[in-house]
């Protein structure tokens, strides 16, 4: 039994709770009780989805450093081979990605190459919608993990997104994930709380959106009992990330803090199977090299730190992290030391149960499609594997009939 003792729970969470003590605190004892009462069963797999908004330049993430076309296509924004972090004889990681390189060396990182979908769409919004709905052929209003939620019993804690806006990925047709802000939470108490709970009951006459408004308030009271202390920490200040360069295509700016909260909540036994975090700023049309390196550095360091934090818990073996972006970028650089929107890019899947190595074919730089990389792996292959092997759910109810799989898990 995964017994998080009250003492351990307090130890894990109080650091965050004390800082925000100016607002009303629920009793920590009471909260510890709630988390212990319905902790996630031991050995339940947990998925952490990391969305990189803006279109991460895959070619400067996993770099074909032996290919002269890489250097000649983007002379101003290619890296010197000696600074890169080689993964094998042909491919290397961006120099800033030391944390992921360390995990790669331990065999815990699967890199799926050339991921995309048929008929690539180079619009941020359309392409992100295709990835998040997992429906590249026609537009639908539900996200792929939202449809998975539809198949589960209702629990606002089952899928949680950090940040205050829910990503479409977690919106189902019947049920949706919850969004959690970072810091500054003040849950109503006393008579007001009683009336807010009354106000958030579902009403027969409610329209669809009014029902959703009522649910969002109701979930606030459901959620608050077990995670208040972590949310009490002050809203983190966004670190100085280079949003100036690539910041007009969405996403949050505080990935490290988001992952810190997720690590604490996983350790505390939060009954959550899916977490969603994000980082924006990857729309590097201009002055890409520094901006992207800084962002990838944040992704890499915060994921290494996250996996490290899990080591001191009983959940390390249960957690799988999946990293993706809506598209890669053009092979040829533009005049602004940046790149325009492109197509295929690499995905990362990280965890103790991952069979480290490369999956999917590396798109060839000599066989471009309209100046863009060819897609060699459909993202639905990855999703199907995640659904079946991590969330233990049939892929078909979420993705429809889909044959492809990417077998990056050890058959333990």
């Amino acid at each position, binding site marked *: 039994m995964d017994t998080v003792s009250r003492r351990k729970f307090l130890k894990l969470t109080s650091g965050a709770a004390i800082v925000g003590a100016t607002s009303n605190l629920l009793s920590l004892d009471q909260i510890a009780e709630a988390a212990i009462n319905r902790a996630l069963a031991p050995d339940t797999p947990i998925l952490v989805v990391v969305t990189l*908004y803006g279109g991460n330049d895959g070619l400067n993430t996993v770099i074909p450093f032996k290919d002269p076309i890489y250097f000649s296509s983007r002379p101003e924004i290619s890296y010197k081979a000696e600074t890169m972090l080689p993964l094998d004889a042909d491919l290397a990681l961006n120099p800033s990605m030391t944390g992921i390189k360390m995990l790669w060396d331990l065999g815990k990182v699967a890199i799926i190459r050339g991921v995309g979908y048929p008929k690539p*769409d*180079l*619009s*941020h*919004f*359309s392409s992100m919608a295709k990835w998040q709905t997992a429906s590249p052929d026609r537009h639908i*209003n539900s996200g792929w993990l939202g449809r998975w939620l539809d198949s589960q019993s209702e629990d606002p804690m089952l899928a949680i997104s950090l*940040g*205050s*806006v*829910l990503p479409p990925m977690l*919106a189902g047709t019947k049920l949706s994930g*919850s*969004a959690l*802000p970072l810091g500054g939470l*003040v849950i*109503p108490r006393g*008579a*007001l709380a*009683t*009336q*807010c709970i*009354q*106000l*958030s009951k*579902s*009403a027969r*006459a*409610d*329209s*669809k*959106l*009014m029902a*959703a*408004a*009522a*649910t*969002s*308030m109701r*979930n*606030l009271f459901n*959620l608050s009992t077990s995670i208040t202390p972590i949310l009490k920490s002050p*809203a983190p200040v966004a670190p100085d990330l280079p*949003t*100036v360069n690539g*910041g*007009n*295509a*969405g996403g949050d700016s505080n990935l490290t803090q988001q992952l810190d909260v997720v690590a604490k909540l996983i350790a505390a036994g939060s009954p959550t199977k899916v977490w969603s975090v994000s980082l924006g700023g990857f*729309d590097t*049309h*201009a002055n890409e090299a520094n901006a992207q390196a800084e962002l990838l550095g944040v992704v890499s360091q915060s994921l290494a730190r996250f996996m490290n934090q899990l080591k001191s818990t009983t959940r390390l073996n249960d957690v799988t992290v999946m990293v993706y972006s809506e598209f890669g970028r053009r092979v040829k650089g*533009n*005049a*602004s030391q*940046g790149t*325009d*929107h492109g197509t295929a890019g690499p995905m990362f899947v990280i965890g103790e149960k991952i069979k480290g190595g490369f999956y999917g074919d590396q798109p060839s730089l000599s066989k471009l499609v*309209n100046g863009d990389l060819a897609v060699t792996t459909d993202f639905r292959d990855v999703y199907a594997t995640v659904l079946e092997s991590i969330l233990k759910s049939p892929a078909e109810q979420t993705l429809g009939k889909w044959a492809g799989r990417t077998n990056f898990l050890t058959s333990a």
Partner: protein
Amino acid sequence: MNIKRLETSRLFHRFGFGPRPGEYVQALKDGVEATRTKFLTVPAIDAGASGIKEPDITDLGKRPEPNTPQIVEFAIAMRYQSEQMGLWWLDRMALSDHGLTERMVWFWHGHWATSIQKLNYALPMFNQNKVLRANSLGNFYTMTKAMLNDGALQFWLDGQDSTFKAPNENLGRELMELFVLGVNRYSEDDVKAIARALTGYQVVRSSGLVSINQKRRDTNPVTLLGTTAVFTGDSIADFLVARNDCAVFIAERLWYRFISSSEVMPDGFAAKTAFADRTINNAVIAMASDSAMSNPQYELVKSPVEWFISACRALELTPSKLATPGQLMSYLDKLNQIPFAPPNVGGWPAGEAWLSSATAQYRISFAAWLIKQSNLNALLSIPIESRVRDSADWLALPEWSARTQSSLRASLDDPAQFALLALCSPEYIVSA
């Protein structure tokens, strides 16, 4: 649901920023037609907005080097100007006698979504607001040309870095996808062509001054949407706006923000044909008179700014006088909507995106903070025995659900709590 109450409520909450106390009851007496006409007629004098002093936004010049004494002064001035500019606009929304004007500027700001986060100067954003203001109900050809010459938009989408040698696709793509035609109404070859034709712009970042550097321009003919020509910014605007897809797209965007963000625009939506001559006012008038306005199926969620401003009007508060402006901006930030800082070039989200448990929590504390600063005169003037029912008139809502009535009734002895529950109710957050 009473259709007259519904349609009148929609005029207040969608074509303005909610009623001041008493206005909804008066409008119900006047009838839907008279109310519609009033909303759609720009008055010669807007007494409410005319008292608001325009902020003094100046060119702060080149940013000083980091770690110099000058940078501190610069940063203080920059922050002060941004704050003053934000408060100025929020005051206009809250105090204007004619909600539609500010509502349209707000719509266009979300359409040509440009953020001060990248500009890092107030002046170009202030200038852009004036362009949107001057054209908000005007001619879309004129607006598009003016926006292509707008320094804030050009800088935001890297126009100043797009040269003959290597065109940058950012501006050209978004011009077609998000501003004029709509996604997939062009090919990737068109994106490459328009990027070449839009090369050569240069922008002074601190002021937004735009010029064209002929040496950096690609003046070769390109083939754009089947037409081969040497294009300029102006001729691209004319060419794209003239296309049928432009009328469809602008009608779709109006539909999305004024009628329904979840239901698809029907073919017969009146704004589409009314936009034939590209006069925005005609499309808006047609939209306000379309049968969709009385169809209960088409609901919208108030965005955080829309919710905040309508609360200010109901509580008779002036945004710039709230204590303190910093606290106000912090609440808007937590709800993820600060004027002049949309999250991305696609503008703010809509619908259920505003309905997370996180926003529910921030809305409650935001409302409590506002209510503390109001004398609640409008609410207290309603006799207590009819306060539950008649508070729907105060806020211009078609009706309260039984659920909400029950929590309001339980709060009759606590007017502050009554007001908070009313402002945070599903009926108020959503425009039915």
